[in-house]
């Protein structure tokens, strides 16, 4: 009896030690992830802040790192984002509307759904090969802004469709039933009753997907965004460059001056992403207030 209680005490002490140990390990791992993020941001800020300035934003790329700027890349990223959104948003939202509002459950619909999930998992560089063959060569868009935007639109479609479906699903059934009961057709119901309500959350998803487009590099390298461009795009058929491609180009040069430029351009890119994400969060919060 006495022995057993001593054993139990020992057992309890040991288990308690283990418990504490795991808590320490768990906290350490969480801190590790946070520390990595901090180190990454600090390293980039330290490397790049000296190069930041108005001239860095208003100069074109140059052979000399101290003269180089990101004007073409920044404007290119902006144009690419707008053009990609113009292509991908109607199609992505349309697909979501069809799947949520019109389609009946069937093996065919299930196939479309599985397909969208799988498309989201295809490596982005494969989309680059697709864009290279379809848009650049077959449709003869050459290495243009339009070819890049079409490629990025295909890449963004699964994300937008998924986000839009979630937005549509959150619209209460009663709204649809009310509209249908008043004699509106299904499309009229979607157009006038469902979409306006779902719009803010769809918009949030769109902005988040565009922040992925802005940071994407590999497919654009494959479809041929040039880093060395000294003009702004004048039409959708102009050659172009974007921020991540410019960053990659600078990183792959050996001179440390270009690495500084890369870090400075990364700061600009991350700031852009931060603004977009803040906008998305702002919209999301506004939506929550409205529905409540």
């Amino acid at each position: 009896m006495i022995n057993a209680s001593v054993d139990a005490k020992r057992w309890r002490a040991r288990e308690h030690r283990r418990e504490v140990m795991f808590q320490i390990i768990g906290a350490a791992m969480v801190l590790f992830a946070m520390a990595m993020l901090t180190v990454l941001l600090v390293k980039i800020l330290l490397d790049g802040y000296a190069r930041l300035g108005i001239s860095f934003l208003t100069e074109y790329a140059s052979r000399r790192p101290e003269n180089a700027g990101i004007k073409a890349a920044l404007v290119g990223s902006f144009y690419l984002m707008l053009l990609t959104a113009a292509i991908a948003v109607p199609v992505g939202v349309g697909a979501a509307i069809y799947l949520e509002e019109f389609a009946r459950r069937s093996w065919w619909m299930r196939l479309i759904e599985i397909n969208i999930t799988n498309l989201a998992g295809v490596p982005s560089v494969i989309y680059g090969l697709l864009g290279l063959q379809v848009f650049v060569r077959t449709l003869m868009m050459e290495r243009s802004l339009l070819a890049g935007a079409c490629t990025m639109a295909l890449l963004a479609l699964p994300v937008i469709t998924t986000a839009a479906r979630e937005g549509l699903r959150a619209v209460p059934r009663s709204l649809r039933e009310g509209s249908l009961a008043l004699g509106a057709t299904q499309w009229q119901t979607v157009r006038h009753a469902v979409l306006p309500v779902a719009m803010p959350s769809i918009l949030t998803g769109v902005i988040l997907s565009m922040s992925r487009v802005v940071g994407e590099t590999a497919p654009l390298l494959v479809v041929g965004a040039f880093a060395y461009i000294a003009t702004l795009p004048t039409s959708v058929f102009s050659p172009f460059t974007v921020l991540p491609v410019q960053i990659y180009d600078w990183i792959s040069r050996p001179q440390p001056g270009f690495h500084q430029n890369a870090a400075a351009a990364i700061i600009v890119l991350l700031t852009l992403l931060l603004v977009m994400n803040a906008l998305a969060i702002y919209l999301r919060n506004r939506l929550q207030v409205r529905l409540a």
Partner: protein
Amino acid sequence: MANRVSLQPSPPHKGGVVEMKQVAVQTPIPAQNRRRVRIEERIARLLLFLCAMLGIGTTFAIVFILVSESLGFFKNVSLVEFLTGTRWAPLFRPQAFGVLPLVVGTLLTTIIALLVAAPVGLIVAVYLCEYASPRVRRTIKPTLEVLAGIPTVVYGYFALTFVTPLLQRFIPGLEGFNALSAGLVMGIMILPTVASLSEDALYAVPNSLRYASLALGATRLQTTWGVVVPAAMSGISVSFLLGISRAVGETMIVAIAAGQQPNFTFNPLRAVETMTTYIVQIAMGDVPHGTLEYSTIFAVGLLLFVITLGLNLISEAFRARYKEAKL
């Protein structure tokens, strides 16, 4: 007749509930109007259907292009040579088309990434789900989301200019481009994927299991690792598989930090080239279109596509089973 003239088709898209009331008031709807509405309905439905079909079309286009462009390649190089050759040198004489160096390069960086992301991700998930206070969770989860949102080219810069020099201080034989630092940083990149999907799986484990285990006298730690984690295992496997799939398809980190030389080596201290890096390298170079050298990127792309598709399908199957188990 007069009725028909006075009743205009409902003013388009003023939005909201008000207009739906108008629709109701406007009965009886004139035949002409009704036809217009029906045509509009049909057109809308068709367009929306086409939008939904574009995804299927994309998949077909990917498969078609990869296969048709690879055909030219496999006319000249046998599948056996491609899959078992240990030398990859399409641009040098004598040419060699063994893809294994690229596969091993991909495998090596992926394994290193998984060695970081799997244990750290799982422990973070367990800690957040079973131990952390709600306040800590609210702080950590957005941080992980930030990590997931950082463009991979930024991670590449970090690997090349920070992690490699840091490691070189401790490992003298480390090359300037190496699989190790690319893999480690890739592990950090997929960490949020693994952690957040694992956490979802752990969170979905019903509390009754935890209570039963605790009631039997198990400690919290024993309950966590003996009951909750095994119960969530299929969901955790999905998170690992998706992490692997992302690591295999990841391009920029390895293109920047792992090098662009197809060495057939398992030594993480050396430079390697992954399948993704090779595709970017050739597509950016000046290899003329239509040559055998050029068609290699589609053969490599096809292999990459098959591998990631396989991983995604397996994880989809796991997920389906995990959903079933919940019911």
